[in-house]
């Protein structure tokens, strides 16, 4: 096993942007197998843009994204599809297909991408829904679910093909604190029971401290990464005042929070 294969994700010199506008430059980071990796930063710093580049919705202007030792950004056709089946995405709104029931939403990737028989697919669907405590709502349509339920159902769909990596875009957004806490616990349970690698884009401090093994701070000013580390340690002893300010919930006008690369 090469060094790259021992990592779930390797990002090298990645430039992210859209419409010829570069948002993030020269990103380099790695995500280990089975860890929960949080991408954080203030609004507009490019967290969601980076996520879109990681999952292949936007092509990178430069650099590469390697999943499980295979270059995803350069992959085309069948190879790209094969890599895509290795990861699942939970979108901010759940993004369930509104014309299908919850069970049909989870079953669709299994019907399209596997040769499993209908009975097994139905069992796998109920298993995934049971894992996210949504088995009682299998026949409900997305419009009949609350925000938290939509996210749990979206997670069941993201897990349909037993992905190695799961991406989450702002999972706590729009949830009440108990629901957000339940989702955090669910994410940890998914990692612990299935061994899945989780990449979470969020700026919810409670979630970051509750779930993250490692976190990466992005900056709008420097258009790049500021620091990677364990959130609790970063909050206490980061060399960057802005990182400490962000993780300790200090206001933007707080002395020293405007410069990200000062070392005091």
């Amino acid at each position, binding site marked *: 096993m090469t060094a790259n294969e021992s990592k779930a994700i390797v990002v090298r010199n990645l430039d992210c942007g859209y419409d010829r506008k570069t948002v993030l430059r020269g990103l380099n980071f790695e995500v280990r197998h089975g860890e929960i990796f949080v991408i954080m930063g203030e609004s507009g710093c490019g967290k969601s843009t980076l996520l879109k580049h990681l999952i292949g919705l936007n092509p990178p202007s430069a650099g590469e994204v390697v999943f499980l030792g295979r270059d995803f950004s350069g992959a085309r056709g069948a190879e790209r599809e094969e890599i895509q089946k290795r990861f699942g995405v939970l979108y901010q709104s759940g993004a369930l297909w509104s014309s299908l029931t919850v069970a049909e939403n989870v079953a669709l990737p299994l019907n399209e991408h596997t040769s499993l028989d209908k009975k097994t697919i139905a069992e796998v669907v109920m*298993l995934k829904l049971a894992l996210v405590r949504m088995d009682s709502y299998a026949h409900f349509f997305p419009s009949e679910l609350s925000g938290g339920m939509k996210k749990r159902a979206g997670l069941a769909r993201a897990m349909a*093909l037993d992905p190695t990596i799961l991406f989450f875009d702002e999972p706590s957004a729009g949830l009440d604190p108990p629901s957000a806490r339940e989702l955090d616990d669910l994410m940890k349970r998914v990692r612990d*029971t299935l061994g899945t690698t989780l990449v979470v884009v969020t700026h919810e401090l409670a979630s970051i401290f509750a779930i993250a093994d490692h976190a990466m701070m992005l900056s709008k000013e420097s258009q790049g990464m500021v620091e990677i580390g364990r959130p609790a340690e970063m909050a206490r002893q980061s060399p960057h005042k802005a990182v400490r300010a962000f993780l300790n919930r200090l206001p933007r006008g707080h002395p020293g929070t405007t410069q990200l690369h000062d070392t005091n």
Partner: protein
Amino acid sequence: MEDVPIPSADAGITAPPSLRVQQERGSLSVFFDGDWTWRAPRPSLVALEQALAKGATEVCCRAEGVKQWDSSLLALLLRLRRQCEETRIPFHVDTLPQHLKRLLEEVPQIKPPRPPSAEQGGLFKSAGLKAIGLFGGAYRALYFTGECAQALAKACRMPKVLRWPECRMVMQECGPASLGIVGLISFLTGCILAWQGALQLRQFGAEIYVADLVGVALVREMGPIMVAIVLAGRIGASFAAHLASMEASEEVDALRTWGFSPVQFLVLPRLMALTCMMPLLVLYADLLGILGGLTVSVTVLGVARSAFLSETWQALHLSDLQVGLLKSLVFAVGVAGIGCATGLKAERSADGVGVATTSSVVKSILYIIVVDAIFGACSHA
């Protein structure tokens, strides 16, 4: 085996999955071997089902030979466990990998999904519900008409309340941007009318009356109907889709909470724009249609251009034009009103936007035909 959970399925398939059963004094041992992932073809379960059907005092699952596994193996184990629970026989999984055992504990009992409850009550109930729906729809239509009338009265009293920039934008979309498609359809309609009329009139040597047919039919009937149908598909549907999207993204709620009337803010500019532009488009369509009839008459039937124009002039009366323009006004109000009302009461989902758009076009076309029939009946009476 190495106790690695699902990520081990990243490797290629090293050995196809297989299943072996062994029965000894009533105890059924099930041996799983190979790679149990959805990427590999599943082995037959007949032997297992036959052994279970014969009866067993306990079931022991052994997975020492499993190299990789995912949810497909977990689902099979859950099915086995459920069958054991139903027949009240012990189910042992002591030799399963740690992660697999933990997952089996995580999913203690999958509740069977509750199918949606079937409607009960039969014919009378469904007829009653239909009637209630019909009355509800009629009430909503009446209420919406009242709101529009109220908003219009307010706009007449205080023209400032009408959002003129939006009104101009919609006018541009309804009028100049529709000239191409309306012109093409009207010209071809004129050509077709002339052609079909000529086939019949030629038998009596009365080709010149093609001019009467084209002129009167276009100005009284076909012009307003064709323009209204084109605008129902082009503009009415876009009103419905736009307002349904706004409803889905809670923009309409935001208007209401700020104290703005959605009818005043969204519907009235569209209603006014379409009502202003439709009669102009009908006049344009009439001219293009007559031009189409003239082209066919001159080039195919050999009718002199001056004779065609003078016959048309004699055949047409001011009342024909008035009826055509009055129809266009009624059609415009209906198409804009139906498009906006359907959009505003759409369900808040992607599906809702699609349903509202289709429904708006179907209802508008139905409205156009019914209103035209009423006009026809009234003019004969």
